[in-house]
């Protein structure tokens, strides 16, 4: 080894230099310190690559243009390890001053630890969409998923007063938003609704469709199909629509509004979807990060009054058409929602 170094000093130097650059040499254990600039650089890290994130990205880009911020979205493919890798990559970028993370699994210590490392390195870290450990982020922007779940439960109870057995579809059962939505759905719906099974697909859309087909044959007695993640909605609607008799007795409740689900909802293949405001999450995420990076206390106080750490972006319940049975706040028909989407230049929400 020593003789190699002696024979090829220039190559050895180049290799060392490359290694130092890759590992962020000189930045200490906590990674590189951010370099303050007039146009702060921030990164959004997603939990999956669902269509839903396109609307967050639009809000993020609009805010970045308006507030003079350099914002970028890095999409995780749906695994804990993938998200940790992205967070570690961000740690080695000295010019990144703020990070917004949709935490893929609430109990994944690796993700929480990577977020803490980012904070130690002087970067501002917030959680968006799906919250993480309280000490791993400075604030959370998104839907109160517990409230969203309860509203979905109430909508199910309104559309189906006698209740029924529920089959749940989700990418990962361990994601904070999945836990919150699923648990509070049953709390909101009441005792007449019981869970048959939760099918997970790991973010694989082909598997999501297979799970729906399996549920259709396995549980002919099911009364409700509940799609927790946005892409579960089109997977459910596509299949259930093939069975007129089953469709007539099953209530389909979903979350968010995937691009493909817009027409499916309009066609009545989905009974209701509880829709977050991803555009707002993206916009407010940039605004808060910039305010925190530049220590703009006035904006921080406006966004987080009284030292709060959560910004609630609210939910809307979207129905195929007006339905007097559904008595919750913020109800819209799909036609009204389409007009809103067009006004924001969006195809999904």
């Amino acid at each position, binding site marked *: 080894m020593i003789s190699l170094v002696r024979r090829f000093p220039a190559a050895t130097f180049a290799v060392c230099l490359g290694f130092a650059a890759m590992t962020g040499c000189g930045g200490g254990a906590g990674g590189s310190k951010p370099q303050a600039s007039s146009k702060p650089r921030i990164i959004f890290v997603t939990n*999956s*690559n*669902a*269509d839903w*994130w*396109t609307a967050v*990205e639009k809000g993020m880009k609009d805010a970045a243009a308006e507030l003079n911020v350099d914002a970028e*979205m*890095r*999409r995780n*493919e*749906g*695994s804990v390890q993938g998200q940790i890798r992205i967070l570690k990559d961000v740690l080695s970028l000295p010019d990144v001053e703020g990070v917004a993370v949709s935490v893929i699994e609430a109990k994944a210590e690796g993700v929480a630890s990577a977020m803490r490392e980012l904070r130690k390195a002087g970067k501002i870290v917030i959680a968006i969409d799906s919250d993480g450990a309280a000490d791993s982020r400075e604030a959370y922007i998104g839907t109160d998923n517990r409230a969203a779940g309860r509203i979905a439960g109430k909508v199910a109870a309104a559309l189906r007063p006698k209740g029924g057995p529920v089959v749940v579809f989700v990418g990962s*059962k361990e994601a904070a938003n999945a836990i919150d939505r699923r648990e509070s759905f049953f709390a909101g719906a009441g005792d007449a609704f019981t869970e048959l*099974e*939760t*099918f*997970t*697909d790991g*973010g*694989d*859309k*082909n598997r999501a*469709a*297979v*799970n729906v*087909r*399996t549920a*259709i*044959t*396995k549980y*002919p007695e099911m009364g409700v199909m509940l799609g927790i993640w946005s892409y579960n909605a*089109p997977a459910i609607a596509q299949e259930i629509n093939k069975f007129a008799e089953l469709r007539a007795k099953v209530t389909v409740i979903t979350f968010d509004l995937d*691009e*493909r689900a817009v027409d499916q909802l309009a066609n009545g293949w989905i009974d209701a979807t509880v829709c977050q405001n991803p555009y707002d999450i993206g916009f407010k995420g940039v605004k808060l990060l910039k305010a925190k990076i530049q220590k703009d206390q006035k904006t921080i106080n406006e966004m987080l009054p009284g030292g709060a750490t959560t910004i609630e972006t609210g939910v809307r319940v979207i129905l195929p058409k007006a339905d007097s049975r559904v008595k919750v706040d913020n109800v819209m028909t799909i036609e009204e929602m389409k007009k809103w989407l067009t006004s924001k230049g969006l195809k999904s929400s």
Partner: protein
Amino acid sequence: MSDRSSSSHAWWKALFRLQETGLFLGVAAVLGVIYLSSARDSFYSPYSLQDMLHQIALFGVLSLGAAIVIIAGGIDLSVGSVVALSSVVAARLMRDWLPALWLGAAPPQTALVGLTLVVTLSAGFLIGVFHAFLINQIRLPPFIATLATLAGLRSVARLISLSQPIGITSDLFIKLGNDTTFTVAIFSVLAIILSVVMGMTVLGRHLYALGGNEAAARLSGLRVPRLKLIAYGLSGLSAALGGILFAGSTGQGDGNLGIGYELWAITAAVVGGCSLSGGAGSIRGTVLGLVLVQIVIKGTGQFKWGVSSTEVEGLVLGTVVVLAVAFNQRNNKSS
């Protein structure tokens, strides 16, 4: 009479020595267990069987290409990434790139889909050619060459798709991957063609010879680089076809499609009797291995375990894979 009896006895012995016999018995045993269980009605419903056939066809296209490479003594770890890349290439061809050729006019559906298929499949074949180049000219081991493209092509897919799913609006294209009749027909034609190529042609025999002993194949005058190019080219082509079908099935081109699908493809080939050291296996066996794997997955999903069936699936599948491969090896040794 005794001659007839002994020839009949030999026939039975030969039948039981056939590698596929074990797989047939495995498939029959799993089907029997399901038939005797509470999952019978749901598993054997026409809808369920149709779904299983659909999944066999979707994953089968990938497994066939993987099997040829394994028989030829190689390995292709890039299958899942080629699936993703071809799905986004096809989606962008239809949405952005090809319509530009019609200068603003709406292109005819069949021409658009036809051109998309030709370009996407050609891209898949060229990826296989690139693998062969890395292996033949740069002398990279197949594992390393395809491991590099496993990462690299996924990245290219995400760059092309701008990391967003791209919706596919062509009904004809969607039909290819979503309509079981079309998907199964495509898979069946490919399986028959490749089975004939591998079992009844000189090319097939050369690929087996290459996988059995590369040095001997070279010394025998076989054109080893060209054979590798054909094997990896076919694998790339079949993975691209898989990408087209999966894109049709999900209605999207997606840079995150097909993560881990190379393992499903290799699993089906290995369960079907392909040896990872090359020179052994068949297209027939691979199809049967695939059928066994998909029956196990579907069957596991239909049982009521008291927990999420997706959590039990890996354990059941892993056990069946170990049993199937152990049986194959034992059967091969005894014959």
